[in-house]
Structures are given as structure tokens and as C-alpha cells.
């Protein structure tokens, strides 16, 4: 009996390997030589780093992977299963908000004998999945098996300020797995993309609805991104609030507690409107919808639309039901509060004073002591002012990032890491204002005023004009600006 059991177990294992043998041929190793800009010295770049990731072949002779696997790539190499030849790949489309990218490989031989993997459906919770990829610790393909633990909206760490649908699994997802497929019944049910440091047996993958949204988005040859309705929806479970709104005391309806300054949304919806249904999904009083058997945030119902599409919404307003149609768009108003890619940081150097936009990437250069360094001004400006004081919020707050030492600025006490308020009397709303303020002034001195206490510094314009070229040369800066 014991011998028979062993045989059966072995057979099952063998069958399992046989079934897995096909998908793995379509899983590729990706090696990216990346080089990131230095956000407080924006004309410079960090050292080139070799990053490893995974990907898989999809229809149309494309390789799908994570955006973070190929971001800031100077060269991207893909390798096929058990094939040592390196192939050069290029990014065709990238969606940083959803952490997905598709690559093309010019060398036609790459796709020989490769079958594109098919996309499956959103897997069920508790169902088994297998991740394929090339995680750190070896060069050969690796498989890990696990079950789907839960499905909900998670913050996508690559961009940092977007929450999209995500699947948690206990299958090990380690560095290098990123971009690799998660397979169930020979179909791709996810793209492995992130874990939580310190949390064991918890890896996350991007599920088919997000992948399909991305692929549909790029069908027109351009990636727009996921729409953002700009609503802050809060639960409506207290009977008093429901009675106040003359809403039946049941489990339907979540209240709009705040709206971002998005004109198209403000035109259709108001604070205290109650969302009863978004698209085909009834909204529960805890702000969730039932999606494929999973309770997830109602924000998903808006995200499933493509950029500029209209979402039918049923609301409760003034004691009655109303049907409205909400056009939803990609939202860029908070891009500085998330990590940025592809576009090199903007800057302007004048008299050795380096001006650059305030951003999360810039904040990261300050290290862990940022709150002591800036007394919280940066964090407030980046994360709170636009909610609390729309009238005083600046589209692109500018910081004096550093001062490149030179005789012309030797007596300037402020040496960087300071928010700029005005230059030569012009309120600085964006980097172009800095350039205009310096280039249009006719005073003998430039006056630069800082926040929060209106401290100021002056530069002798005549001396700066003579020194500018020399400073750029001394510090190896090819251009005084990137706008």
C-alpha cells in the first residue's frame, strides 16, 4: 500500500511538472541596467545599477513585465528559458500607475518557438496559483506555489499614491520575481509585483482586470492611465447621518465626504451626495462594492472605466434618487506626491543657486530626518495644502535645493532645502516663474524670499551674470536649465 501511495504521489508531481513545462518556456528573465537621476542635483545621475526581473510573452510579440523592472533603464536585456543569448528589448508602453509595461524585441529570433501566454480571469480566493520567475539567489527559473489569500485595493508601491486592485498570495514573491506571471490552469491570472517588508508569506500580484485595462488602454497607441474620480467616499453607517439625509436605514449607500478640484467631477457630484450604485455595482454603506465575489472599495468601479469614459452613477441627493453620468479622467494634480519616472527632473541654476520642483523624489534625498530638516514645510506643501487651502496652493512648489559654492554666493546664508516664496517680487508658482523672475528683472540685486518666515537673500545681478558660465563649467553642468 505504501509503495502504491508513493507512486501516485510521484505521478501527480510528474503531471504537475508536465503541465508547468509549457508556461515556463514563455517566461523570460529581464536584466535592466538602470540609472536614476539625482533629484537634488538634477543634472547628475546615480551610478548604473543592474536590476533583475521577470516577464512573459503575450500576444503581438510582446513581453509583459512590471514598470518598475524597466524604469530608468539604459539597456534592457531579455533572456529566454534555458537560452543564454541576450536579446535587447525596448519599452513600448509603460503604465507607472499600474506598474505594468510591455516590451518589444527587435530581433525576430527571440519569439521563435515561443507561445504567448493567455490571460485568465480573476482567481478565486483560496484557489491555488503558481508564480514563475527569476528571483534573486540563482539564474534558473523558479516556481512557487500558493493560494490566493485575499483580493482588495492596495497601494501600488512603484508610484506610491495610487490604490488599485491587487491580489495577495502566500506564494513566495521575492525580488526578481517582479514582472513574472502568476499561473492558474495554464493561464496568466496575475503579474507578481510587490511584497511587504517584514511580512512573511504575503506577496502581491496584479490581477487580470488591471492587466486587461492596461492592454485596452494602449490599443490606440497611447497609454492614458487609470481614471481617478477624485472622490473621498466615507462609510455611512451611523443611523443619525442616514436620517439627516433622509436615506433609508439599510446597508446601501456611501457618502461623498470630499471632492478633489476636478472640474468634471465637481460639475456632476457634490459633497454629501450618497453613492448608491456605480456602473453595475451597488455601493454598500461601508463604501464597498461586491466585485467577482470580493468586497472591495467602490473606487474600483470608477477605475474599471477607461480615461474620459463616462460612468453611470446612481446617487441620493435632496432626499431622492438621481441618475448621473460622471466622466472620469486620469488625474495628475498629485503627481509630485508620487514617485515620478521617464521625465528627468526639472531645474534651473542661477548664480549657483539650484532651483527644482518639490516632489516626493526630492524629499527622498533628504533621508529619514526630513521632518527635522524642513520643519514639516515640505510635507505640508506636498500632501496637505491642496486639501486645506486651495487658494494658496501652488501648482508646482519650488525649492532651493542647494547652493553650488562660488564667490558670487559666498555670503548667502541659506544653503538649500528651503521653499521659495517670491523672486524679485514674483510669486513662484512653477519653475518657469523662477526663470522669468530672474530674466526679466532690471534691479541691481535679485531678491529671493523664502518660506515660511520670509527670510530672504540677495544676489548682485552684475556679478551673477559674469559668474554663471563659470559655475556651470566648474560643476560640470551642461545646461543651466531643464524646463
Amino acid at each position, binding site marked *: 500500500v505504501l509503495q502504491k501511495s508513493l507512486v501516485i504521489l510521484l505521478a501527480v508531481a510528474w503531471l504537475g511538472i508536465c503541465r508547468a513545462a509549457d508556461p515556463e518556456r514563455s517566461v523570460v528573465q529581464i536584466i535592466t541596467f538602470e540609472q536614476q537621476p539625482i533629484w537634488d542635483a538634477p543634472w547628475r545621475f546615480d551610478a548604473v545599477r543592474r536590476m533583475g526581473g521577470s516577464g512573459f510573452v503575450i500576444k503581438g510579440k510582446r513581453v509583459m513585465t512590471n514598470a518598475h523592472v524597466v524604469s530608468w533603464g539604459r539597456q534592457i536585456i531579455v533572456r529566454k528559458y534555458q537560452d543564454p543569448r541576450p536579446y535587447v528589448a525596448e519599452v513600448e508602453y509603460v503604465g507607472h500607475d499600474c506598474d505594468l509595461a510591455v516590451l518589444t524585441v527587435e530581433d525576430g529570433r527571440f519569439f521563435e518557438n515561443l507561445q504567448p501566454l493567455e490571460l485568465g480571469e480573476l482567481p478565486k480566493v483560496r484557489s491555488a496559483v503558481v508564480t514563475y520567475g527569476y528571483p534573486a539567489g540563482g539564474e534558473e527559473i523558479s516556481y512557487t506555489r500558493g493560494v490566493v489569500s485575499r483580493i482588495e485595493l492596495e497601494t501600488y508601491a512603484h508610484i506610491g499614491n495610487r490604490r488599485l486592485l491587487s491580489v495577495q498570495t502566500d506564494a513566495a514573491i521575492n525580488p526578481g520575481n517582479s514582472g513574472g506571471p502568476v499561473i492558474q490552469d495554464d493561464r496568466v491570472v496575475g503579474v507578481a509585483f510587490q511584497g511587504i517588508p517584514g511580512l512573511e508569506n504575503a506577496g502581491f500580484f496584479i490581477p487580470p482586470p488591471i492587466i486587461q485595462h492596461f492592454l485596452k488602454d494602449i490599443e490606440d497607441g497611447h497609454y492614458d492611465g487609470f481614471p481617478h474620480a477624485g472622490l*473621498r467616499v*466615507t*462609510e*455611512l*453607517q*451611523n*443611523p*443619525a*447621518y442616514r*436620517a*439627516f439625509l433622509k436615506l433609508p436605514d439599510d446597508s446601501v449607500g456611501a457618502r461623498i*465626504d*470630499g471632492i478633489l478640484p476636478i472640474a468634471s467631477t465637481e460639475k456632476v457630484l457634490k*459633497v*454629501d451626495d450618497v453613492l448608491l450604485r456605480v456602473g453595475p455595482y451597488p455601493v454598500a454603506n461601508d463604501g464597498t462594492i461586491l466585485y467577482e465575489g470580493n468586497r472591495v472599495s467602490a473606487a474600483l468601479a470608477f477605475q474599471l472605466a477607461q480615461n474620459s469614459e463616462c460612468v453611470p452613477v446612481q446617487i441620493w441627493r435632496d432626499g431622492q434618487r438621481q441618475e448621473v453620468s460622471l466622466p472620469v479622467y486620469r488625474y495628475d494634480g498629485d503627481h509630485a506626491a508620487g514617485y515620478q519616472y521617464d521625465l528627468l527632473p526639472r531645474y534651473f541654476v542661477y548664480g549657483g543657486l539650484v532651483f527644482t520642483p518639490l516632489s516626493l523624489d526630492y524629499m527622498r534625498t533628504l533621508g529619514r530626518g526630513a*521632518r*527635522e*530638516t*524642513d*520643519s*514639516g*514645510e515640505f*510635507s*505640508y506643501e506636498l*500632501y*496637505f495644502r491642496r*486639501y*486645506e487651502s486651495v487658494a494658496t496652493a501652488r501648482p508646482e512648489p519650488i525649492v532651493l535645493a542647494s547652493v553650488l559654492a562660488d564667490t558670487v554666493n559666498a*555670503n*548667502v*546664508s*541659506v*544653503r*538649500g*532645502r*528651503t521653499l521659495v516664496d517670491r523672486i524679485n517680487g514674483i510669486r513662484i508658482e512653477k519653475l518657469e516663474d523662477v526663470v522669468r523672475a530672474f530674466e526679466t528683472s532690471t534691479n*541691481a*540685486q535679485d*531678491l529671493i524670499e523664502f518660506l*515660511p*518666515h*520670509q*527670510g*530672504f*537673500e*540677495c*544676489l*548682485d545681478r552684475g556679478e551673477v551674470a559674469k559668474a554663471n558660465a563659470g559655475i556651470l563649467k566648474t560643476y560640470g553642468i551642461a545646461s543651466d536649465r531643464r524646463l
Partner: protein
Amino acid sequence: MISVNNSIPTRWRNRTLHLLLVWVLVFEAGFLATAAEPPVQKAPASWESSIVTIEVARKRYDYYQPWTRRTSQMQKSGLVLADHQILTTADEMFDRTLVRLQKNGRGRWWIGEVTWIDYHANLALVTCVDADFWRDLKPVTLKGEMPAENNLQVLRWRNGNLENRHAEFNQFIVREGQLSTVSHVTLEADCEIQGAGGSEPVVANSHVVSIVNAQADRTCIAIPASFITDILEAKKNGKYHGLGYFHFYWQPAANPASLARLKLSGEPRGVIVIQVPDRPDGGEQVLKPQDIILQIDGFDIDIQGDYEDPEYGHLMLENLSTRAKWAGDEAKMKIWREGKPLDITYRLPKYDYSTSLVPMATYDQDPEYLMIGGLVFQPLTDSYLQSWGPDWKRRAPFRLTYYRTESPEKDRPSLVLLSQVLPDPYNIGYQEQRCLVVDKVNGQRVNRLPDLRAALDKPVNGFHIIEFVQSDSLRKMVLIAGDTEHEATSRVLKRYGINEPLHFAPEREK
């Protein structure tokens, strides 16, 4: 008020340092029993009759549960002065329930009474009504005179012996007070003593030169004798009305291009005023942004903001607001404005915790709160924020700590927050809300708890509508008013063991 000479405001740096000092004090107090220390020298017998031990029992509050009290006690030093007075620091004397005094480091304890306390200056006077206590005690002399040979000693009673540690003078430096943001001169001395900061006298030969109010590593930070004697003298003469300060921001004038723009020719000198907030006393601000302060009370101000003090050498100009001057006194300033010299008189405003948007302290006052139906409202204060522990500046919610950097305004002099919700059927759906700053209740602006109470008396159509300051968190709540609310409040009081639904500070009760 503040010098702004780089991106780290002085006040921030100093507050950080103070936090560290408090931590060191607390930590090392528990460390005394086991730490290896250099041998203790025996103090001259003459000091034994001039230094007493003060034991303070006091209330400690848990601002997460403002209705609860704990007690603690600690010991510190006191210096015998004339007229049956004992001098000590005000630190750890707040929220006191009992003060006891002990002579000779051992034996009987005597009941002490605090006759005067000034938290801003960090000074207090204690007395004992029992005449027997004063027998054999000898008043000391407080003198700023520093010995040429630098032989300072730090003294305190410990295990029945008068501990005597050699200290080496470092410098006189202007820094914010231990219990306030008013800057004044302090003495720094290196010493091998551990856990100092409890008002230990620093003596030189036969007189006391300062009392220690904090310690950072080996450095003792002490309040100099002249600062103390000036205050005590002014108090005696009825001229002391609390500490004053300079209520404006300035920056060094090290940049000749900035001075050229302000049309000041000649050698660079003075400091530049950059921001002049409204005075807390509503008085006229005589300074304007871009004034250059050249002289204060006849002392030339250099481009770093220092002046040459006849007693202490180079000191930051802030000290001129406390150098034998008090709230309401005048400082004569020579300034440069719009290309011309000008003499002005600056009246020093009185420092007070309550003039900050987020008060730094609320001493001798049980925590204020108001609870309805499980919703707990409290004023936003440093004491509340400190409930996040020693690292509270990092751990407390950013938006709340950031209010500390903001100035009060006429229509927003202080803040009230919904600190937490004690779960009850009445507040279902709101149980996880916390740390929300209240804007309006039932349409009325709420700056203080009495405003809140008044607003709750006027529900709107049977509802309480609570609006929070616009931020990235919840902005509005609605609750049932009336009997349901009162029943819920009673239920929560009983279930959570709370005696009273509210506590206001006495002066606000009026």
C-alpha cells in the same frame, strides 16, 4: 524671537535638544543605582547647611484617557536663601500634590509650601512654616562671579552624603528655557555627575554661580545666578511681571548684497527683521520686515545677531529681552529703515503658553475634555501630543504636530480636536475616527471646549452636525441630539469608568 540663519529654525533645534535633555534626565535617574561613576568627593561642611532635598509628589496624566490620574514622586535639590525661602527650579513642581523637605540628606521630612513659581523662568521658591526646620540652616549667596581657576563643583544630597563633583566651565550660551521658548543666557559645564538637572547648585568657592536644570551627556546646563537674582530682586520690588521676549523673526545680515539692497553702507552690521507677527497683547508692532537692528539698549548687534555682554561675553541678542528686563519693559533699539537710522522703543510682550496655537504646556491643570456619546474632544496641546511617547514629534500625526509651527489667528486662537471615539451603539460607524481638528459644530466656530459646549446646546433639527477642518481625513459627522445623546453619554460614562463627562480649566468655566 527667532533667528533664521539656515533652514533649521533655532526654536526647532532647541526644542529637540530639550526633549533629549528630559529623556536623559528620566533615563539616568533610573540608572543611578548601577552605573559606574568616578569616586565622589566630600563637599565642604559649610554647604551641608545650605542645600536641602525637596521631594515632590505629583499627578501624572494620560492624555489618551484625560479623566485618569496617576501619581509619581521625585527628589531634587533646593538652596536655602534668606527670609526662610528655598530656591529650586520649577521643573517637576507642576501638578504637585505634596512637597516635603529634608535637611542634611537624611532624617525627618518637613512639609514644604511653594510660595512662588514661574514656569517660564523655571524658578520656584519653597518655604516651611515650621520654625524648627530653619534651625541650623544657613542662607547662601548667589553671585555670577566666575572663579579664575575654573574650579566649579556640582553638589547634591545622595544617600545621606553631600555629593561633590568637579565641573569644568564650557561657555555661556543663549538657549530657550527648559519650560518655555523664551531664550536667556545659560551656563554650560562638563561634569561626571549622572542624572543631574534637579536644581543642583554649581558652586565656586563660597558662592553659588548657577543651578543645574538639565544635562546632556556630560554637559550640565544651568541657570546663571545673575538671571535668578535679577528676577528675585525685581519680584521683591514688585517690578517682575513675567518674562518678556522679542516677538519677531530675524536673520543674520552676513550678505552684503542684502545690506546694499537695504541701503546700509559701511561695514556689514546688525540683523535683518524678516517677519513681524501680530503681538499677543494686541499692541502696536514698531518693527517692520526689512528693518535692520543695529543696537539694542546701547549694545551693538553684529551680523550674526550677537552682542558683547559685559558679564558673559558674546551672546545672542535674544538675551537682551531677559537681561534684567521683564514683560512690559522697554528695549531701546537703533534700527535702519528705508535708508535712514531710526530710534524706536520696543515694549516686551509677556510670554504665555496660551498665546501659541498649540500651547507648549498646561501646568497645574487637569486635562480638559468633553465627552458626548463616546466622542472625546480635547484641546490640542503639546501635552496631548506628548502622549505619543519620547519620540512624539515623529510618531504623533504629522498634521497635528505641524500646527505647532502655525501662528494663532483672531478667528482661530486655539484648536479643539476629536481625539478618539469610545465605541457605543450611538456612534456606530465613527468608532475609528480620531485626531480630527474641529472646525464648526452646529454651524458655530469651535476654538475652545466652552465653544463646543455652547454649540452642542443648539442642535440643528435634532442633529449635531460636526464639521472638521478640511484636510485629507473625514470632514463631517452627524449625530442624534437630545435624549438619545444623553442616554449614550451616561452609558459610555458607566461602561468606560469615567466619572464626569467633561472637565474644563477653572478660568474657562467662568
